[in-house]
C-alpha cells in the first residue's frame, strides 16, 4: 500500500473501447509523479479518475488505503490546476483563490490571511483586486495554482498546466511548481506530453500508451533504459535495428555485424536502439570491428552545436548527431561506432 493507489482501473465511454485498461499506479507520499504520453494515451483520463471527475467502470482508487472510488469530487479535497486554468471570470483574484475556503465556511479573517499568504507565495499580491481578464497567461497560471493549493489539498493534480505558456515562461513556471511542491511536501500528479518538462520536474514518471502504463520509473531510468520501443521512440531514440541473440551480451545483425552490449538483456528483447547523439562517427580505418557499421552520408543538417547526418547503412537509415566539429559531405563514407553501454535493447 502506498499513499495513492490505483488498482485495475478500467474506463470506457461507449462500453466497447477501453480508454484505460487495468491501470495500476502507486504513488508515494510527497512525490511528484508525471503521466507522460502522446495525446489520446489516457493520461488526462487517469488524472480525471483521480480527481473524481470520471468514475471508472472497474477498479479502485485509494488514498491512504481508503477507497475513494465513489466519493464525489467536492468531497475529495484535491487541488486541481486545469489546462485552461478555469478561473472564475466574475470573481477577483482574491475571491478566486478564496473560493474553496469560503465553501469550507472559514471565518473572513482566516480566509483573508490564507489568501494573502498564498498570493504572496505565488507573487500575485499586487493583483489581488484584479479580475482574471486583466492578467497575463503566466499570472493566470499562478492564480490557478494558488487557488488549488490554498485549500491545503491531500493531492495536487496538474493537467498540462504549462502548455498555454511560451517556452521561456514554461521553464520558469515548472521550476516554480517544483519548488512550491517540495516546500509544501504535497503529493502531486502532473500530466504532460512534453518529455523534457516531465523529466525536469518529476520524482517518478509513468509513460502511458493506449490506456496502459508501459513504464513507471525515475526520469533517469526512463531516459537511459526505456523498456519498450514505443517509449524509446517517444523520448528521442531514433535508430532501431533487429538483433539476434548469440550468447550473453553478444548479438548479431542481419548483415553479420557483431554487437556487444554493456549488460545482459532479457532474451525477449530483440531490437537494438541508440540515440543519434550517442553514436560516434569515425572517418579513418582505425575503428573497432564489433559494434561498428559503415555507411554513406545522405543528408547533413546544421543544428547549431552539432551536425545531424542521415546515414545510409546496411541496417537502413541511421541518424547521427556529431559535435566533433568535422563537417562530412553528402556521399562521404563513414563508420558508425555504437558504444556498448549506449546500446539499449527493447
Amino acid at each position, binding site marked *: 500500500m502506498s499513499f495513492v493507489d490505483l488498482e485495475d482501473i478500467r474506463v470506457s465511454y461507449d462500453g466497447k473501447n477501453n480508454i484505460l485498461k487495468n491501470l495500476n499506479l502507486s504513488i508515494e507520499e510527497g512525490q511528484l509523479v508525471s503521466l507522460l504520453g502522446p495525446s489520446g494515451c489516457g493520461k488526462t483520463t487517469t488524472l480525471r479518475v483521480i*480527481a473524481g*471527475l470520471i468514475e471508472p467502470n472497474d477498479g479502485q482508487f485509494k488514498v491512504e488505503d481508503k477507497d475513494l472510488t465513489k466519493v*464525489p*469530487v*467536492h*468531497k*475529495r*479535497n*484535491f*487541488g*486541481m490546476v*486545469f*489546462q*485552461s486554468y*478555469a*478561473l*472564475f*471570470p*466574475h470573481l*477577483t483574484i482574491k475571491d478566486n483563490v478564496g*473560493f*474553496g475556503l469560503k*465553501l*469550507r465556511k472559514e471565518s473572513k479573517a482566516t480566509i483573508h490571511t490564507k489568501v494573502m499568504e498564498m498570493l504572496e507565495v505565488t507573487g500575485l499580491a499586487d493583483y489581488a483586486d*484584479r*479580475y*482574471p*481578464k*486583466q492578467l497575463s497567461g503566466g499570472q493566470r497560471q499562478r492564480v490557478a495554482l494558488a*487557488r*488549488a493549493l490554498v*485549500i491545503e489539498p491531500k493531492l495536487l*493534480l496538474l493537467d498540462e498546466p504549462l502548455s498555454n505558456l511560451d517556452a521561456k515562461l514554461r521553464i520558469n513556471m515548472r521550476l516554480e511548481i517544483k519548488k512550491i511542491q517540495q516546500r509544501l511536501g504535497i503529493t502531486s500528479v502532473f500530466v504532460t506530453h512534453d518529455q523534457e518538462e516531465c523529466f525536469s520536474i518529476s520524482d517518478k514518471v509513468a509513460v502511458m500508451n493506449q490506456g496502459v502504463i508501459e513504464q513507471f520509473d525515475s526520469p533517469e531510468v526512463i531516459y537511459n533504459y526505456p523498456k519498450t520501443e514505443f517509449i524509446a521512440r517517444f523520448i528521442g531514440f531514433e535508430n532501431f535495428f533487429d538483433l539476434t541473440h548469440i550468447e550473453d551480451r553478444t548479438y548479431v545483425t542481419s548483415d553479420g555485424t557483431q554487437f556487444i552490449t554493456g549488460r545482459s538483456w532479457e532474451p525477449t528483447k530483440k531490437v537494438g536502439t541508440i540515440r543519434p547523439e550517442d553514436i560516434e562517427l569515425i572517418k579513418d580505418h582505425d575503428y573497432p570491428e564489433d559494434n561498428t557499421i559503415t555507411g554513406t552520408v545522405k543528408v547533413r543538417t546544421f543544428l547549431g552545436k552539432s551536425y545531424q547526418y542521415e546515414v545510409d547503412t546496411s541496417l537502413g537509415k541511421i541518424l547521427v548527431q556529431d559535435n566533433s566539429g568535422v563537417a562530412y559531405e553528402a556521399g562521404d563514407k563513414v563508420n558508425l561506432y555504437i558504444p556498448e553501454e549506449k546500446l539499449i535493447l527493447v
Partner: protein
Amino acid sequence: MSKKTAYLILTPGIVLLLFFLMLPLVSIIWPTFYDGGLTFNSYLVFFQDSYNLAILFRTIKISLIVTIIGIGFGVPTAYYIANSPKKWRGLLMSLTLFPLLTNSVVRSFAWINILGRNGIINTALLSTGLISEPLTLLYTEFAIIMGSFYLFLPVMIISLVGTFENIDTEIMEAAETLGANRLAAFVKVILPLSIPGIIVGSILVFTGTLTAYTTPQLLGGNRNMMMSTFLYQNAMALGDWQSASVIALIMIVTTLLVMKGFNTVAAKLDKRGEKYA
C-alpha cells in the same frame, strides 16, 4: 473609402428608417402633445384616472411575474439542454421551439380548453370530487399569466442555452474540485456567468408580454384589460385615436424604463473587470 461615399451608401438606409420607422412614430405621438400649442394635457388626463392606472400597473405586474417565472423555469431547462449530449440537444431545442411555429391565437385557444368552465382542469377536479363547483380560471389575471408564460418560455430558453453552452465546462469542474457540490457550483459560478443571457431573455419576455394582444384578449376578457387590449379598445371600439396614441407612448416609455432597469441590475451583478479592460 471616403466619407462622402460612406454617407452616400448609408443614404437609402437612413431614408428608409426615417420614412418607415420614425415618421409613423412621430405622426402618432406628435398629436398627443399638440393642441394649438405644446401641451401635456392628454397625459395628465390619463394619469388622473385610477381606471387607467390600474390597467398600467396590471400590465407591468403581469409582465414582471411572467418574466420571473420565465427565469425560474427557463434557467434549469436551458441548463439541462445545454449540458445534454449533442445528439439530444437538437431534438430538445426543436421541441422547445415547436410552440413558436404555431399561431399565437391557436395557442391561446388551447389554454381556453384547459382553463375553461368545462376545461380539462375543472373536469378533472370535479370528477375526483375535490371541488363541487367549477373554478373560475379563465378570464383572470392567472389565465393571462399562464398563457403568456407558455407563449414566451421558449424565447427565454433560447437566449439561455447559448449562454450556458459558452461557459467552459472546466469552470464547473474547478468549482467542484474546490469543494462545491453541483448546486453550489451552479449558484456561485454558472448563474453569475449566465446573467447576460438572463437579461436578454428577460427583456424579450417582458416586452413580449407587455405588448402581446391576443393572449390577454382571449384569456383575460374585458375585466382584466392590459395596455395592448386597452389601446385596441380605444382605437377600434371607441374610435378615440388620441387616447390610443397616449397609451402607445406610455407603453414604449415603460418598456424603455424597464430595459434600462434590467441593464442596471446586470451591470451590478456582472463585473468581470470590465471597468479596467
